[in-house]
């Protein structure tokens, strides 16, 4: 046989054999340790994404920092005034909600990578800095001061696309995030959608992330009748197959409680840390809009959640101020849902509109300063605020985000009032609780509305109160006095003022769908 079995050749072959063997084992070991049960090909893709994104962002941030330093140096030399970020303390904190950050727009719930990057960079450049859950809780409890532009970033569901496209950016920007994990989903084997426990551990180890509970298995629809029509786990009574009936109230409560407890204990055991915050799945107040067969369901869930966790997140609505204030601290906190079509500028505007505003405040409606459309239609085009009732309603209402902390002020508005009644709101706590001066043709009323129930505090007939193209009305609050103003004259007073808050405007007309109003500008002065 013409065989060369020299020591050298055998040695080389053995060496190569063991290197290859070692290489193959090492590869799979690394894959398991980094990506858990994620399928191999997906793991390769993720590894690729991680390496390339981190390298790319490092490069970009290096370039950005260089240009920043360069332009700062240049500005300094040229004697230009440098932009200084606000050094004030925050009086309220917003929280953002994301789900997945996707490559291409596939549904309305997820934000694209491009938009997300634009959003984060825009916020960073404007001086917004993210905070941790701990910092948030301490701020709400009044134990810590935070800079004015502080915010919390959360991601729901615990998907791979909440982490891999996001973390490299956070690393470079110095941002932090909170991941709300569906405890049962993370055990899905070979998932290319959810993060596996190994990956979540790695996420926690970066120091940039925390986790919270997003239920154990409460995120998917379950049958609410014999036919199997789906309902919301945390708001509807579910169909019991064996007994062939719906749950009782008691059974609902127990089921919900068990899920909440199970989620918390699973997460705490898996990651060896306290997990005491909860994000309600389908969190428009646990899907109250979808709740079909049990109106008390959502409230029971909230109550049970409060016994298991110390903080619960719901989505904010136009009926509330969008930021979270320490004074009103409760179990529930609210989050702003970042829409798929928001670019950086839009998100920045939404957030800056929510920052508690200073007095004096003037608005000619050339931009949206944060008017929350509680109900009806709001149109801010053409440098006017136009309010119109929906076709089946008799009124429309807006109030100004960020005005909640105002205490003593005079709110005056110039408007075109042609029909129905116009209300100027003051001391707005939310869309259903406020004081108002209600102007109708020939009469003005001072009212107090609490949770939608209105009480009249005073009333005055005055023939000068009439419709017109350019009327001036006002409401003034200070101490325990509320006054209504017509043409800058105080014409009605009340001495009962149990609450303080911000400003708003409403319009009303008994004929459905006709209430309409156009405000040209407003001025709020400290008083």
């Amino acid at each position, binding site marked *: *046989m*013409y*065989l*060369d*079995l020299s020591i050298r*050749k055998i040695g080389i*072959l053995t060496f*190569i054999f063991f*290197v*290859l063997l070692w*290489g*193959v084992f090492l*590869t*799979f070991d690394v894959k398991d340790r980094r990506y858990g049960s994620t399928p*191999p*090909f997906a793991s390769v893709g993720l590894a690729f994404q991680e390496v390339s994104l981190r390298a790319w962002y490092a490069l970009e941030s290096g370039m950005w920092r260089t240009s920043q330093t360069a332009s700062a140096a240049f500005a300094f030399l040229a004697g230009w005034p440098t932009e200084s970020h606000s050094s004030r303390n925050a009086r309220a904190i917003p929280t953002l909600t994301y789900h997945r950050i996707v490559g291409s727009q596939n549904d309305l719930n997820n934000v694209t990578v491009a938009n997300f990057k634009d959003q984060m960079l825009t916020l960073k450049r404007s001086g917004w800095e993210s905070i941790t859950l701990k910092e948030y809780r301490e701020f709400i409890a009044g134990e810590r001061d935070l800079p004015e532009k502080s915010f919390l970033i959360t991601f729901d569901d615990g998907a791979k696309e909440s982490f891999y496209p996001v973390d490299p950016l956070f690393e470079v920007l110095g941002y932090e995030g909170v991941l709300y994990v569906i405890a049962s989903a993370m055990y899905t084997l070979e998932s290319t959608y959810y993060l596996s426990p190994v990956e979540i551990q790695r996420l926690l180890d970066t120091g940039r992330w925390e986790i919270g509970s997003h239920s154990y298995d409460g995120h998917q629809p379950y049958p609410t009748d014999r036919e199997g029509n789906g309902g919301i786990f945390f708001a509807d009574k579910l169909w019991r197959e064996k007994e062939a009936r719906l749950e009782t109230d008691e059974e609902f409560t127990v089921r919900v409680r068990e899920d909440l407890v199970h989620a918390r204990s699973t997460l705490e055991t898996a990651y060896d840390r306290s997990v005491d915050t909860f994000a309600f799945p389908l969190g428009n107040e646990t899907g109250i809009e979808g709740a079909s067969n049990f109106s008390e369901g959502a409230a029971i869930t909230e109550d049970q959640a409060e016994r298991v966790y110390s903080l619960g997140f719901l989505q904010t609505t136009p009926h509330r101020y969008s930021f979270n204030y320490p004074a009103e601290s409760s179990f529930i906190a609210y989050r702003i849902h970042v829409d798929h079509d928001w670019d950086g500028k839009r998100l920045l505007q939404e957030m800056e509109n929510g920052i508690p505003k200073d007095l004096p405040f003037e608005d000619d409606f050339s931009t949206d300063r944060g008017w929350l459309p509680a109900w009806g239609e709001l149109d801010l085009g053409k440098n006017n605020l136009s309010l119109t009732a929906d076709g089946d309603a008799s009124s429309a209402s807006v109030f100004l985000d960020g005005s909640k902390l105002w205490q003593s002020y005079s709110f005056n508005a110039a408007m075109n009032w042609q029909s129905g009644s116009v209300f100027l709101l003051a001391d707005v706590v939310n869309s259903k609780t406020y004081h108002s001066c209600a102007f109708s043709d020939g009469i003005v009323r001072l009212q107090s509305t609490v949770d939608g129930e209105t009480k009249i505090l005073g009333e005055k007939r005055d023939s000068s109160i009439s419709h017109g193209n350019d009327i001036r009305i006002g409401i003034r609050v200070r101490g325990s006095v509320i006054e209504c103003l017509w043409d800058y004259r105080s014409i009605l007073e009340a001495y009962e003022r149990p609450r303080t808050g911000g400003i708003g405007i409403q319009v009303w007309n008994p004929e459905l769908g006709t209430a309409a109003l156009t405000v040209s500008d407003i001025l709020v002065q400290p008083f």
Partner: protein
Amino acid sequence: MRVFRGNSSHRLTDTTRGLRDTFVDLGGWFFFFSIIYIILLFKVVTYDSISSHVFFGIYSLLITSYILSRFLFAYLHKPIPIDLTYEPSVTFVVPAKDEEDNIEETIRRFATVEYPREKIEVIVINDGSSDRTLERMHRVAHEIEGAVRRVEVVNFPINRGKRYGMAEGAKRAEHEIVIFIDSDSFIEPSAVRHLVKYFSDPSVGAASGHTDVWNRDTNLLTQMQAIRYYIAFKVYKAAESIFGAVTCCPGCCSAYRRKYVMEFVDEWLHQKFLGVECTYGDDRSLTNFMIRKYRAVYSPMAKAHTVVPDKFRKYMRQQQRWKKSWIRETFIAATFMWKKNLIAATSFYSYVFLAFISPIVFFRAVVWYPAVYDSWPVVYLTGLFLMLLLHGLYYRIHVGPRAWLLAIGNFWFNTVILMWQLPWAVLTLRDTRWGTR
């Protein structure tokens, strides 16, 4: 050949060049083994589909281990050194038909071989050429007369077929070792010594030289063939040669022991298959007769160059011929190969299995699966590509950059097409129409 000047600075440049070459080589090998690493990862990852479809799983594992084993054996193959005390007499036999362009150069080369004059004779056979081949033969025979012991020009006025030419040459030969050279092949001066050195072992009956492509740089087709020739010899023939079981000593440059050839020359000449006399596959057939009793080896240092088809149609016809002879001779060899060394036999039967199953696997992966399951055959095609990349890298490391990457792509395309010539060849086995060029 490098001209060495006795200059110290020049030596430094050689060292740096040597270092750079080593670096590039190491890089090439690193890349080579990285491909193997990736192939192994693939096999592990696709384990599920391997274990669920046993037949195709076996194919997948077998083809990977077969190909890797070829590289392994080729690495372990050791050529023997030249023995200056063993100098058998040699006869060059060159059958030719319509080869007026190349025949002179082919024959002229015999005068330049590094071997004792009196031990060389040349027999050229004109096989019914319609051009000036015969004329050129006479002219060049006259030219080299003084450089060899004797030259004989045999003329067949009417074409009889290559086999008859080869047989005639072997019969008329008076020397011990017959070296068959194609009429468009050119040997190196050192080739003779490297061919005959193996015959000092009486169990050796045939030795194949290493043939490279002469017209390598003509076009993409020839470049691709250059890679295939190189790999076929340096990897596959070397692997077979370890056990002396080379299945084909090609007619472009191979040596045979005349005494053993005479034992079966007529049987070989009048070989019939399926009732039809065989006209093609003369070299493979002759080797097959030889390895029944004796050994056939590969001599990597016995170098020759041959002209390959540079037109696609000519190439396809050649490949089709080769496929048919391969089927016939493999069928015959399968009847006795099991008697040989276990590894040689296993390799042989594995290769037969793989060659016939490949079109089926290809069809299933690339046509059937996508049609039924609407999924791309990413794994199969990637695996195929990785294997071809492996071969191309091997070539690149040993021979150097010569548009090898493009050739790989072409190689891939042709492998995919040529694979289908096999079933077609089976169907047209009795058809001898493409027997001639």
